[in-house]
């Protein structure tokens, strides 16, 4: 999506606003005009926003146009963004915005790259597992390889004599694999697999590499190869544990979610029925655990059934049905304090199981488990009480007295919506809310919006009916913290405790670990990221840092004010910069984050809002970067979600350049998915599309477009000469050009 197209839409309603603001935003010095090769384009842009630059602004902008990296188009877009958002045109501000808009995620990759000096047994095991996944070997063989090589590595590291046996076993297995096939050119294969970190002297890794090469170049029948592998593994790694009924896979942090069902095998209570069935079905040969993606699809399919065929009338009664949906994980059904404590204990046991190494590494004298139980229980009980208070408050607000005027009701609705949003996005309750509770709350919010619209149009009876439905729905919710959310909360507490007792310098706090951990945490047990998760990711990346700092400063006697620290990426980067001013990557990433924050400045007077985020996400084993543009009408202090447009642009490791456009107009949502092979994305997005309906957004049209020609054109356009760009702009200043509507240069 070309950002100019976004502004084209924004300006339909936005320009007048800027005309009104021009007195406040225009520079106070002597007015001046641009000169040089970009003069026409720049003068046109400033004129478009009714701005007259002064000499300082002209100097800053011209300097930026000359020195900043990137195409002329991208720099003009930066200037336009600053103009639109009313950002002061200083060189620092322009560079920050430019950096955010053109951040291709490379810096994030640098920051999240694993530290090669810290190769551990776990890391080796993880690499090996990755490789065996790549090979798509049978589960049993994969586990055998993993287990034997992990044992081998551990024993070898300990200098244990018995390590020789494991080494021999692993070596034999690998040799058998290698003997079936042939091998050459290790380095290029490594690079093509993105496994540059494997060291040649790492015997087990190099052995496995040989296996990979041989498998890749094999002309042998794959069944024969795999059969040979299995036989060899059984013969040489004759450890019954490997082939026991219960799978035994060493748990690592990165596999926490995916293998949750494996980890839970020891606790009947914690195993959901589906996974329990899978475990019971195990015949001692092969244990197949459904990957999270399949489980997610099932959840989506369930939701699809619920949402399909929904009509306007059905929607009124739907929220109550949501309560009867089958929850995929254990939740508190009886919410007395004892049952909360029991659930907390179960969740913390899980956290301890997953954080064994971390705990071992901590040289602490305090009883961390007790601390976690206390803090998590306390927070959960507090959340339960807060939720009860919220329910009472909503009930009071939405109880319409006979003498109430429509204005009174409208105000009560607005207050309830505000309370609801705050509950989801700001309160501790939101941290414990599972997908099903969130759906009910989002649906209620949508109905309250609808009731407000009904009041405005004089449909009082409809408004009152909707209000009664919401009262009933919210009143009927039983606060149910999900186990995965409790684990998340406890993990945070553990992380904070680790940081408090760990004397490592900030540089060793390792942004990579923190970002990956954060991405792993902020999703529910089925892998879905809820609204609160997204907000927490934005906050973790520092998108709300200064706003919250000021909030803390403005709050008298705030606890935060006395001992303040969010532990977010912005804060970490600022600390790193303070300690090491020479680190250009850190400096550039800080600037990019700041630029992003500047673009999210709220327009206090405008009727349209524009936001921009670089959001990290899990792209396989790496951290990807997704650009998200939002623009929409303003409703009170918020973006009007029923009239909003979103663009997602990303370059995926496997699926390549992908764009997703979501347009919500009058509450009806159209989605366009753009990719070179859109069919691959169809099934997932069809499920997702139906899922939107359960969040109070009515599904409209779902389209899939092939983007080959568009992306090629986008690249060509990005290579336009400055003169051509200026001429285009001069002819039709930032007019919407459909053929440029999908440009990944931004």
């Amino acid at each position: 999506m070309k950002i100019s197209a976004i502004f084209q839409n924004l300006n339909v309603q936005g320009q007048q606003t800027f005309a009104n603001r021009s007195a406040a935003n225009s520079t106070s010095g002597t007015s001046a005009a641009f000169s040089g090769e970009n003069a026409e384009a720049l003068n046109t842009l400033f004129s478009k926003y009714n701005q007259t630059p002064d000499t300082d602004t002209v100097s800053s902008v011209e300097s930026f146009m000359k020195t900043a990296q990137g195409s002329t188009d991208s720099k003009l877009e930066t200037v336009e963004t600053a103009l639109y958002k009313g950002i002061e045109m200083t060189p620092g501000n322009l560079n920050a915005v430019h950096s955010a808009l053109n951040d291709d995620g490379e810096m994030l990759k640098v920051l999240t790259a694993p530290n090669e000096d810290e190769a551990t047994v776990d890391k080796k095991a993880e690499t090996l597992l990755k490789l065996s996944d790549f090979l798509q070997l049978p589960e049993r063989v994969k586990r055998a390889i993993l287990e034997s090589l992990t044992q081998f590595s551990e024993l070898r590291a300990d200098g244990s004599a018995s390590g020789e046996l494991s080494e021999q076993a692993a070596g034999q297995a690998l040799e058998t694999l290698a003997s079936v096939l042939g091998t050459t050119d290790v380095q290029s294969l490594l690079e093509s697999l993105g496994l540059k970190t494997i060291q040649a002297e790492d015997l087990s890794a190099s052995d496995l590499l040989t296996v990979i090469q041989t498998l890749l170049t094999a002309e042998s029948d794959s069944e024969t190869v795999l059969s040979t592998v299995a036989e060899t593994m059984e013969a040489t790694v004759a450890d019954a544990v490997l082939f026991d009924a219960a799978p035994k896979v060493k748990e690592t942090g990165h596999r926490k979610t995916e293998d949750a069902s494996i980890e839970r095998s020891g606790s009947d209570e914690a195993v959901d029925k589906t996974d329990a069935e899978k475990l019971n079905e195990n015949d001692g040969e092969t244990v197949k655990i459904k990957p999270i993606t399949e489980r997610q699809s099932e959840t989506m399919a369930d939701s699809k059934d619920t949402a399909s065929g929904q009509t306007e009338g059905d929607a009124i009664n739907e929220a109550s049905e949501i309560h009867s949906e089958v929850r995929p994980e254990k939740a508190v059904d009886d919410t007395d304090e004892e049952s909360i404590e029991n659930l907390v204990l179960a969740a913390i046991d899980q956290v301890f199981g997953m954080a064994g190494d971390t705990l071992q590494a901590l040289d602490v004298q305090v009883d961390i488990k007790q601390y976690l139980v206390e803090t998590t229980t306390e927070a959960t009980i507090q959340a339960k009480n807060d939720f009860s208070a919220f329910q009472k408050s909503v009930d009071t607000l939405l109880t319409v007295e006979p003498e109430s005027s429509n204005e009174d009701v409208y105000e009560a609705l607005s207050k309830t919506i505000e309370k609801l949003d705050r509950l989801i996005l700001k309160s501790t309750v939101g941290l414990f809310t599972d997908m099903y509770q969130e759906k009910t709350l989002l649906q209620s919010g949508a109905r309250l919006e609808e009731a407000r619209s009904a009041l405005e149009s004089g449909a009082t009876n409809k408004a009152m009916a909707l209000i009664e439905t919401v009262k009933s729905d919210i009143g009927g919710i039983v606060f149910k913290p999900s186990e995965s959310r409790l684990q998340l909360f406890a993990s945070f507490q553990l992380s904070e405790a680790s940081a408090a007792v760990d004397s490592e310098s900030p540089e060793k706090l390792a942004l990579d670990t923190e970002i990956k951990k954060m991405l792993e945490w902020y999703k529910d047990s089925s892998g879905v990221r809820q609204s609160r998760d997204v907000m927490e990711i934005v906050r973790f990346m520092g998108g709300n840092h200064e706003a919250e700092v000021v909030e803390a400063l403005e709050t008298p006697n705030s606890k935060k004010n006395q001992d303040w620290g969010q532990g977010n990426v912005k804060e970490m980067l600022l600390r790193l910069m303070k300690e090491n001013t020479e680190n250009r990557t850190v400096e550039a990433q800080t600037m990019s984050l700041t630029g992003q924050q500047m673009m999210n400045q709220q327009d206090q007077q405008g009727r349209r809002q524009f936001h921009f985020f670089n959001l990290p996400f899990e792209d396989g084993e790496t951290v990807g970067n997704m650009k998200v543009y939002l623009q929409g009408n303003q409703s009170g202090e918020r973006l009007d979600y029923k009239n909003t447009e979103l663009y997602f642009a990303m370059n995926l490791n496997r699926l390549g350049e992908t764009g997703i456009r979501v347009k919500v107009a009058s509450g009806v949502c159209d989605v366009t998915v753009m990719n070179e092979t859109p069919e691959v994305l169809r099934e997932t997005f069809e499920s997702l599309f139906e899922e939107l309906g359960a969040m109070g957004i009515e599904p409209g049209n779902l389209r899939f477009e092939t983007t080959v020609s568009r992306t090629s054109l986008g690249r060509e356009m990005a290579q336009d000469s400055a003169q051509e760009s200026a001429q285009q702009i001069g002819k039709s200043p930032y007019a919407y050009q459909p053929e440029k509507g999908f440009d990944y240069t931004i």
Partner: protein
Amino acid sequence: MNQPKRKAVSHAYEQYDNQTDFKGYAKQVASELKQSGIPAETDPERLQHLIRNDLRSALPPQILGVIGRIISAVEALEKEEDQ
């Protein structure tokens, strides 16, 4: 019907909304930040644009929910392709 009145000022900075000297407030905040040692942007030129954007108040949960679903779908697809 009439829209309800705008809510009362809840943040100190809001009193600057109708003034041209918002940077003055940013300078004051920057000074406090430097004194307190809290890690945050302290350049008033940039800071003035960072302190009016509490995203928890600006973004509706429905839109964040849509973003979350799309991220999850993309992550699931990539994981499937990886396997």
